[in-house]
């Protein structure tokens, strides 16, 4: 079940579209926020709220990389390794995250503090290498700078 506030939020979003199906992507975001990731409960809640079959909701949810299908750490480190970032050293930064924090691509630290997701281009190529931590952009990264940034996320 979605919370009351989530259902209200979804009803408002639903009004922006001519039909309920179009509200599926926003609904999945809301469910992800409520449940932490999209598992069976989350899909059931979305399906109930919008009247969309679970199989359809799941088919759509699994198509997009920003919907998570397993529990994630408290903070999601999203490091870009696409070409502009790669040629300016992004792979070394991925190695650094692995060596210093034990963070493997797709993995989560045992204390559930961080998860690492390797990203395709995040639109910060002019200030590469770049990453997002949760919703915040960090650019012109170095190992030292990443160390400082991650200290801010407990």
């Amino acid at each position, binding site marked *: 079940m979605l919370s009351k506030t989530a259902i209200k939020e979804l009803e408002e979003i639903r009004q922006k579209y001519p039909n309920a199906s179009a509200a599926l992507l926003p609904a999945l975001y809301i469910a992800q926020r409520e449940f932490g990731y999209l598992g069976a409960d989350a899909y059931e809640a979305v399906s109930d709220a919008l009247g969309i079959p679970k199989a359809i909701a799941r088919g759509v949810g699994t198509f997009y990389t920003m919907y998570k299908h397993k529990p994630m750490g408290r903070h999601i480190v999203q490091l870009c390794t696409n070409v502009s970032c790669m040629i300016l050293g992004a792979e070394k930064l991925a190695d650094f995250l692995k060596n210093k924090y034990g963070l493997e691509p797709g993995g989560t630290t045992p204390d559930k503090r961080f998860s690492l997701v390797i990203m395709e281009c995040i*639109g910060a190529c002019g200030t590469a290498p770049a990453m997002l931590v949760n919703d915040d952009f960090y650019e012109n990264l170095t190992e030292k700078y990443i160390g400082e940034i991650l200290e801010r996320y407990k």
Partner: protein
Amino acid sequence: MEKILLKNIENPNSADINEYKKIGGYRSIPKAFENKPQEITEIVKKAGLRGRGGAGFPVAMKWSFACADAKFPKYLLCNADEGEPGTFKDRLILEKNPHLLIEGMVISGYAIGAEYGYIYLRGEYPGAYHILNRAIAQAYENNLLGDNILGKGIKFQLAVHRGAGAYICGEETALIESLEGDKGQPRIKPPFPVNVGAFAKPTVINNVETLSNIPYIVEIGGGAYSKIGSPDCPGPKLYCVSGHVEKPGVYELPMGTLLRDIIYKHCGGIKEGKNLKAVCPGGITTPVLPADKIDCPMDFVNMPKHGSMLGSGAVIVMDETVCLVKVCHRALKFLEHESCGKCTPCREGTGWLRKILERIENGAGAEGDIELLLSVSGNMLGKTFCPLGDGAASVVQNFIKHFRNEFEEHIKRAKCVMRDA
């Protein structure tokens, strides 16, 4: 050149409606409403504006197709999916100048008779999502969006639709699928979106930068606008430069600026005095150019004559230390990941190409692998459902065309020849 799209962005409050109004913003809407909708399309036609999303399609032509279809309501979609690696220009408009885009959309909606608009924003831009929503709310408060804009009886409702991480959703029919709440897989064309688009209604899809040109065109007129930049392809252009240049960033320059001038004059040349090796001029899926082929005017008409494409105007600059087999491999890894899986040549081909490139880069390439790459990519070209698959094949073909030697050396010496260089 006077800044048009990036006007006022040094102002830390540039995204606020009052700051935008202070520099003359939102004056083009009342001016546009003095004209009939068809007259706006005429002005845009005279301006010669081409779409900035990658294909360079004439904007007025697309608009008139949608106008000619009698079905209602019509939709105007802004493509803010900005997924082509190397591209970061739309983000700048979205975060710093959102009202310019909104103004452009109100006028464009009026021109085509669309009462509903959506901005399809990539999921990876959470900052822009909040900024846009705030800007839209301000525009509603100022009666610049709604059912009776400026009391003139004109309706335009605008909302942001957030994507969720899929490059293919930048392709216009996949974007529509995704807006409708489905997987982002391209649709067969025809019917084209101008006839059967969002919710089966006539739909115009334009890029963020394209729509952001509209207020200025209305302000100065089509004739004056058409004198900026290349004659066949006028206007200001946002070039996003990344990689090994001294001053990377987004540059607003006249369309048709020479690639060499962008790199050496505007961006201060190659970092640390090194030599240029290669450039992808319009994002990683546009054909790579070697260092001696950069005297080309960066516009939609001239780039194909010089062996590449303008694409999204994303100039990725690579110096002499870069391994191009590795870059090619990274590009294919991306395209394999982003292939939507709908058609076999792309779904399977991108993976095969990536695997062959991976073994070459890792020193395990076999004799004949280059021929194999050419054969697999040759079998994809022209046989894929949408341009993503074609793009993947062309990436491989162009890297080999210009840098075959580097691929051969990798195979012959059974290692990455750049790593110890």
